[in-house]
């Protein structure tokens, strides 16, 4: 079958598949349909498109084989490699985590030992001759009478000499630095509940900018910290010479220390069983409270309000420490500077 070319007018032979199509459709005699089908068939008379990318690599034999269905061998290898790498990375991460935890435990033990050993220095302050010679510093809240420069000074300073500017946000270490002379100023004030002497509440009621020196003067300090002790029973504080500035006591937890001091520390004014050995002033003589405990050494209940049970608490605390797996006694004995006390 032939048909006339539209542009040249020449008669050309139709492709076989077009002839078959026209025959099947009973349109073999229709020149318009024949021209249309020839025009459509011309769409396939083109060069093969230039392959690019993965297809070009395939046709250039750069890829060995694509057999294996949807996933080629290369993909399988890649997936396997990624899987192995993931497993290795996960194992390494887990091992590092476990190693890190194990390595962390000795550090924790060491820190616990230090936390036990540090507060032992506090009896040093109480055992100072100046402190022991003054009446009744035992019941005074430690955190209030902490400034060595509080006596006769309107601006107390911390143990390091830095002025204390107020209660709000005041470093606890500065407040807890023991100052014998400051204690003497407020001697005889019954100790409040031990809970109120936590580092955070020691300066409650005195906001930022409050004058801490008033508390240290022996009057306002008592009213601020212990209202029950201000009923005229606070004797005027005797003039006490300034004691040499003591180093600031670290603000480490003191809970396990008070009991330990009772048994191991020879501090006379520390706990109940050691109190009789100390000077009379260490007992808090001017205190109105008959049940006034011996001089407090710590801010915890074991040290202040239950000083007569120091041995028992000491044993309890030792027992607790042993239960925890720590050994606080060794660092206590080694770190306790008992020589100056004697």
């Amino acid at each position: 079958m032939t048909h006339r070319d539209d542009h040249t007018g020449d008669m050309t032979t139709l492709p076989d598949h077009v002839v078959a199509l026209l025959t099947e459709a009973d349109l073999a005699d229709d020149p318009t349909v024949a021209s249309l089908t020839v025009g459509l068939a011309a769409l396939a008379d083109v060069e093969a498109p230039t392959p690019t990318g993965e297809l070009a690599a395939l046709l250039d034999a750069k890829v060995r084989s694509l057999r294996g269905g949807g996933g080629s061998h290369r993909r399988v290898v890649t997936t396997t490699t990624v899987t192995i790498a993931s497993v290795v990375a996960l194992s390494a991460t887990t091992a590092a985590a476990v190693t890190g935890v194990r390595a962390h435990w000795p550090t924790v033990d060491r820190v616990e030992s230090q936390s036990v050993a540090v507060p032992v220095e506090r009896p040093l302050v109480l055992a100072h001759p100046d402190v022991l010679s003054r009446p009744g510093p035992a019941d005074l809240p430690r955190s209030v009478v902490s400034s060595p420069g509080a006596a006769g000074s309107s601006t107390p300073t911390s143990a390091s000499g830095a002025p204390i500017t107020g209660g709000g946000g005041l470093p606890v270490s500065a407040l807890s630095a023991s100052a014998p002379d400051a204690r003497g100023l407020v001697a005889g004030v019954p100790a409040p509940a031990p809970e109120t002497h936590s580092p955070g509440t020691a300066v409650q009621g005195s906001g930022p900018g409050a004058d801490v020196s008033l508390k240290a003067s022996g009057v306002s300090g008592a009213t601020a910290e212990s209202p029950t002790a201000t009923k005229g029973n606070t004797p005027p504080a005797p003039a006490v010479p300034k004691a040499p500035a003591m180093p600031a006591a670290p603000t480490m937890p003191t809970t396990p220390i008070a009991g330990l001091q009772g048994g191991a520390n020879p501090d006379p004014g520390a706990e109940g069983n050691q109190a009789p050995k100390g000077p009379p002033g260490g007992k808090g003589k001017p205190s109105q409270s008959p049940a006034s405990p011996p001089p407090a050494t710590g801010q915890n209940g074991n040290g202040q309000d239950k000083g007569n049970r120091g041995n028992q608490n000491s044993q309890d605390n030792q027992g607790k420490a042993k239960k925890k797996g720590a050994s606080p006694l060794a660092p206590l004995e080694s770190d306790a500077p008992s020589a100056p006390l004697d």
Partner: protein
Amino acid sequence: MEVGDVDGVRAGDPAAFRRVYAVLSPLVLGYLRAHGSADPEALTQEVFLTIFRRAADLRGGPDGLRTFALSVAHARLVDEWRARARRPDIVELDETEDPRVAPPAEVEALTALDSEAVVALLGALPEAQRSVVALRTVAGLSLEETADVLGRSVGAIKQLQRRGLLGLRALAEERGVTP
């Protein structure tokens, strides 16, 4: 393309790949162009990548491979239609291609019955008729092969191809594209 080429494709022979690609890619490209594919060249390469990856599962001779190639091409084309339906292309209005504007006589004479004009007429047909006519004319498939590609019966293909050809003639006469 010979039977040996199909066997070479099954065996992963790159030379067979090249021969098969040289023979079948124009058909696939023409079929995709007849349907107005947005990027027929890229789609053609995707088709042959699929073919070569599944070469081990091929059955039949050269005719079977050609049918399989057009089946993959049609499937990719349908995917493109669906994607285009989800996000239609936005093109600027070109007055020269606006069918409401009558083209100049010289332009009409130059474009009469060329491939682009026929493709434009073909695009006006329903999708089923367009596919049948394109497969029969561009790809050169038989009735049975066309029925296999489109998943229809031979009788249905016969009716569709006749309606399609008559529709093309009507459109050509309507638009003045006559030989």
